[in-house]
């Protein structure tokens, strides 16, 4: 083999001045599709479904409970799809599991997640009053209520403030029992108060229950039951 034949058969080295080789490039939707790696498609589809569900709740097309349940179904379907290629989306499984636990706990405890939280102040004017709320803040003002007065309040998630006259507390006319499944009951006691006839100043506790020390004939009876949150008793002077 001569030098002339070898230089003829060897390919010419590519330089910077050479034009780029012609490559068939997809256009439009195909171009966008070609940029997305196949491995990411289930994740992207899941995010789109979750975004649609969040949007439907924000707009008001779907109730939160329905959207969360559908999110669990979507995450489950994504897990099955990933399992087909031998993978397990750990993050999606953890999120879906947490949602299942929360939804089941709400179903079990009777908490309605579809109700919107409320912030309200109630001043009962009749002898008996009962309040029920899924979430929010409930203030029960008993300072000007008639006597005798009986009040019950049930709140799923939130805060309950009970305002009672300090004079009634000192006289032992207030019988208050508050129970919180997850949270605490707070009964603030004034620093200069030598008489402490009401409850205690409770710190945070997972399961808290406080009852006041009332006399033999209480004229104000209050029963408060809170799932998650806190109860505050304010003594109004």
């Amino acid at each position, binding site marked *: 083999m001569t030098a002339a034949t070898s230089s003829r058969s060897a390919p010419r080295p590519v330089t910077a001045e050479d034009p780029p080789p012609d490559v068939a490039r997809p256009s439009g939707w195909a171009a966008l599709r070609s940029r997305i790696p196949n491995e990411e498609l289930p994740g992207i589809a899941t995010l789109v479904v979750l975004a649609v569900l969040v949007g439907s709740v924000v707009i008001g097309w779907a109730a939160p409970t329905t959207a969360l349940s*559908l999110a669990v179904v979507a995450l489950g379907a994504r897990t099955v799809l990933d*399992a087909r290629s*031998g993978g*397990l989306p750990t993050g999606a499984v953890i999120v*879906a599991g947490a949602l299942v636990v929360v939804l089941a706990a709400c179903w079990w405890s009777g908490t309605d997640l579809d109700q919107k939280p409320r912030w309200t102040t109630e001043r009962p004017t009749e002898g008996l009053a009962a309040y029920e709320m899924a979430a929010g803040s409930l203030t029960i003002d008993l300072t000007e209520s008639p006597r005798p007065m009986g009040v019950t309040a049930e709140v799923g998630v939130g805060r309950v403030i009970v305002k009672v006259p300090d004079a009634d507390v000192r006289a032992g006319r207030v019988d208050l029992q508050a129970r919180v499944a997850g949270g605490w009951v707070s009964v603030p006691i004034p620093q200069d108060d030598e008489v402490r006839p009401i409850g205690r100043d409770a710190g945070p506790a997972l399961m808290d229950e406080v009852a006041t020390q009332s006399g033999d004939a209480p004229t104000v009876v209050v029963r408060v039951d809170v799932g998650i949150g806190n109860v505050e008793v304010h003594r109004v002077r």
Partner: protein
Amino acid sequence: MSGERRGWNRGWDVKGAAVGLFLIGAGLVLLRRDDAAFDALPALAIVGAVACGALALALARLDGALGDLLSKELTRRRARKTGAERI
């Protein structure tokens, strides 16, 4: 269950499939909120987990069998077409 096979059937993760099916079932139960299901919720969860495991195994085997069948058919057609072109 994971294998070295490629293409149509790359091998199922049966545990993952069972978890996914369980989540789908739980989501549907929570969506319906049936009173009968509420009364038997703990038992339903246990039975559902076992059923989802069995269903995932069946699904993996069925998908594998269908994938093999389809691959063989596609290969046969390709071979037939290639043979015709050569002739």
